[in-house]
């Protein structure tokens, strides 16, 4: 990687390789394509929102790995019940 690439903020190639591999390995290990993972996320959100109101903006769903095992980690903030009730009343 040349001096000018670095000067213009181009990411070094080893980092790109590592990032790309991290994603590819998740999909290889779980046998889920990125599209399937997205639809799983959508289903998860739809199911949960049927029961409680969620804060869609602050939500995060992703794959993490711990050694060789993968886990689906969902961090879904719920809107507080009091706030929800107040919001309903003011409608």
């Amino acid at each position, binding site marked *: *990687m040349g001096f000018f690439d670095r000067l213009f903020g181009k990411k*070094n190639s080893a980092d790109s*390789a590592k990032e790309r*591999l991290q994603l590819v*390995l998740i999909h*290889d290990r779980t046998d889920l394509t990125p599209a399937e993972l997205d639809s799983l996320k959508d289903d998860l959100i739809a199911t949960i929102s049927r029961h409680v109101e969620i804060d869609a903006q602050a939500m995060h769903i992703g794959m993490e790995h711990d050694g*060789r095992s993968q886990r689906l980690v969902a961090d879904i903030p719920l809107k507080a019940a009091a706030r929800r009730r107040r919001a309903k009343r003011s409608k």
Partner: protein
Amino acid sequence: MPAQVITITSGKGGVGKTTAVANIAVALASEGAKVVCIDGDIGLRNLDVILGLENRIVYDIVDVIEGRCRLRQAMIRDKKLPELYLIPAAQTRDKNAVSPSDMNRLIKDLRNDFDFVLIDSPAGIERGFKNAIAPADRVLVVTNPEISAVRDADRVIGILEAEEKGPGALIINRLNPALVKNHDMLSAEDVLDLLAVELIGIVPEDENVIIGSNRGAPVAFDPKSRAGQAFRNIAKRLRGEKVPFLDLDNTGGFWQRLQRLAGRK
């Protein structure tokens, strides 16, 4: 004590499996261990040329399995190391000529006469690979610090876990320290972080490997070669010794480089 049966595999082709088998075999036999290596790549045999034994082949592994010769008749003794033997692959047959249970039977007959049985697996994850891992006590997975080789190694490690062959131990082959330093090659740490398995060796890229295979004399014979040293260290680790990994950052610090430029070192 019965032999340790070690299979060397990789998923991707061309990462240096056969070179690793030849060198580890030479290193183990140089230290006095009785070693037999088996070329599992039926139809595409190469361990014979890497070891420089191609002119001595009479019988091969398929001849043994199909009963055309006795096991001992297919074993070729190395030119320099009297305790090192090769069982060559058949060149005119395909992988379906051998089954995993054939391999188990063959290895059972070798276990009591040797300290190490090394099996060179073909690339891929099909029949030849299944044959090669069936009798293994331990599997070594060879990879290069390169995106496709690491991905394939991960697949193989997953299959080994599923087949209850343990996760395998990793050999990172052809690491180029200058490229790593320049952040243009995955480092050994990066590869380990991605694959999350035990490391058993890091072998630097070394032109002596090609020179050695041209001559049919693996670099493990060459006391000056860094790759040879790395393979000798892997052999020691297989025998249970604790050996630190090579410091591959041979470019040194700023002052060393300056001194070298000034011709003082």
